[in-house]
């Protein structure tokens, strides 16, 4: 699989402040790429560099193998976090204008807009002024404006903010469909459950540096610690727990017990296989739950950022 977008050693300084320090990311074609990081980490700056809104001090961005040029903006659709529309302009006119600014012809733009307005069943908004729309409605229009010129690369910065769960789902499905049709998506958010759901690849930026990147599954493998969560019905919870603790390292679990079973997190040695633990446990009682603890995106995020803070 080739890469649609490669950003190489991007450096951006604002006066004495370094917003991006040698950040590189690789976005495979046809994937959904999660760009994560705490507030003020430099995500937006990186996105602006990719959009050619900000010029980097050093480093190059390649789109489809070639250095980014001004013409490429028609291949990129960008939904910024700080977004809005001209309040006193009519929805249809505004969408047409923004489509033409992206380089579409007026006729193409009209056709595309009709398609999307029909799809979202908002055809009757065409002549409404933006100030008459609710926030969610305006967001829908904004989404259409981002995708209507069929860009190869879509960049969404917090796309779900301002949407109710039903509409957020609608947008999520649209993003997945666009991906299936061949678009590549860069997705920046603080909502880790949607990262979990959508992203195949992620990069984590903290304090202007990239501290983590790769396939989400690889990263999870990297972050898991051979820990298993177990629930077991025993005759005597306290003594059995002591017995297990002699053979394995145990960690407190926050899993709620359904009955009065013993719930634990058990860590095994790196070279040990899980069957050893399972076999040992089966002799102690009836096992009702046995699962490897795989860190979720949220935990990875927190752990990586805390680690980075500790390292200074």
């Amino acid at each position, binding site marked *: 699989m080739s890469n649609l977008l490669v950003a190489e050693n991007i450096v951006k300084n604002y006066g004495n402040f370094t917003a991006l320090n040698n950040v590189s990311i690789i976005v495979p074609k046809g994937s959904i790429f999660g760009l994560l990081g705490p507030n003020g980490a430099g995500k937006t700056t990186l996105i602006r560099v990719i959009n050619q809104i900000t010029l980097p001090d050093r480093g190059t961005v390649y789109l489809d193998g070639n250095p980014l040029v001004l013409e490429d903006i028609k291949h990129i659709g*960008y939904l910024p976090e*700080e*977004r809005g*529309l001209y309040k006193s302009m009519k929805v249809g006119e505004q969408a047409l204008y923004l489509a033409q*600014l992206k380089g579409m012809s007026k006729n193409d733009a009209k056709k595309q807009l009709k398609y999307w307005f029909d799809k979202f069943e908002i055809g009757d908004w065409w002549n409404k002024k933006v100030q008459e729309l609710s926030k969610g409605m305006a967001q829908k229009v904004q989404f259409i404006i981002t995708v209507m010129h069929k860009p190869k690369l879509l960049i969404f910065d917090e796309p779900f903010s301002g949407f109710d769960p039903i509409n957020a789902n609608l947008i999520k499905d649209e993003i997945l469909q666009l991906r299936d049709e061949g678009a590549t998506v860069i997705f920046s958010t603080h909502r880790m459950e949607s990262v979990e759901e959508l992203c195949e690849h992620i990069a984590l930026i903290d304090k202007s540096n990239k501290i983590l990147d790769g396939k989400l599954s690889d990263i999870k493998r990297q972050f898991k610690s051979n820990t298993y969560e177990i629930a077991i019905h025993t005759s005597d919870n306290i003594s059995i727990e002591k017995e297990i603790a002699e053979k394995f390292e145990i960690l407190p679990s926050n899993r709620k017990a359904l009955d009065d079973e013993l719930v634990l997190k058990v860590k095994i040695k790196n070279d040990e296989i899980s069957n050893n633990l399972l076999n040992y446990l089966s002799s102690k009682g009836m096992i009702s739950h046995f699962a490897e603890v795989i860190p979720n995106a949220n935990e990875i995020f927190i752990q990586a950022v805390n680690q980075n803070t500790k390292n200074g």
Partner: protein
Amino acid sequence: MDKLLLIIKREFIAKVRNKTFIIMTFLSPLLMIGMISLVAFLTKSSLEKKRTIAYVDGSHLFSSDDFKDDKTINFINLSDVDLEIAKNITQESDHYGLLYIPKNNKVDELSEKIQFFSEDSPNMMLIADLESVISAKLQKIKIKNSGIDLEKLEASKINVDVQLSNFSGERTSKLINGLKIGFGMGAGYLLMMFIIIYGAMVMRSVIEEKTSRIIEVIISSVKPFYLMLGKVIGTASAGLLQFFIWSIVLSILMLIASLVFGVEMSSNIDAMQVSSEQMEMVKSTMAGEMQVLISEVRKLPLTTMFFMFFFYFLGGYLLYSSIYAAIGAAVDNETDTQQFMLPVMLPLMLGLYVGFSSVIGDPHGTVATVFSMIPFTSPIVMLMRIPFGVPWWQIAISITLLIVTFVGVIWLAAKIYRVGILMYGKKPTYKELYKWLKY
């Protein structure tokens, strides 16, 4: 380029469709005419109001021939009574005032002892009128006293009118200077108004884009510089349209006004006691002047004036509106713009004042020449100088400086604009702006 046109078109349409813009376009000329008419009406009615002035002449030098009733003043002679009684009468009968000429045989002393009593402070025009009547009378008395024949003195008066010619012998008109000054002042004033009105409009439009948060969507499609340029040009187009409509509506209203008031004007002339002989003389000299004037106007560098007007108008507007755009980009709301307005207004005001004070007196003097070179004042000052004929090398220097400055300022403004439009929540200082230039 296509995108620039798109932006210009959108800005133009957005401005023109704006309700305030439409209302102002048609209301302003009406308001202006209304104001002028109101002032004219009030002045006229205050002039026409008859005032009664009582006078006590203790000197017995004046007769009722000196204090003749006219359209605005009725005189009442109270010389028979004492001053105090006259005062009471004046107050009780609600007369405008009381003129008191004390008894004194020495004319020179008398001239400083005349008093006017009134309820409120009196109309200065009226006092001036009274003074001229009295001084004329006293002068006559003095002349008589020194034994000069008044009639001979009158006959010896002569009116001189110097005829202006240039060295090739053609007659020139004095009126043409007035016309040149009129053009210069009009053009300079127009340019300043245009910059202030539409520059501020550019600024507001930038602030609107910032506060509505659409800016990032747009500049992911076009370079900020084009957005700024499109905004400046689009607003100027809307402004020119508005000016055009204003001038049409104003001239129509003026025409109507002059038709209505014109009738009264001619009746006024009849009322003036001008002999038909004098009228003929005035008319013939006026006709002569007019002919000279027309030929003079034809000789004015009209093409140069037109192109220069065009150039300086455009240059001045673009220079200032790009600064306005940068200010708009630097702030989050209009109240924060105040601190940046002074440096913009100062050169504009200076240009206008220099123009009004020195160009009119001495169009080719040092002050006028220097300020017509300095780029920030040159559009206004040079526009005022042009009708008087400016050496080509001065124009060349002025234009070159203006273009160089314009490019520099646009470049700086674009930098501030580019950084500023993405900055939220910071109240910018000059230091901050300087830092932005280096981003």
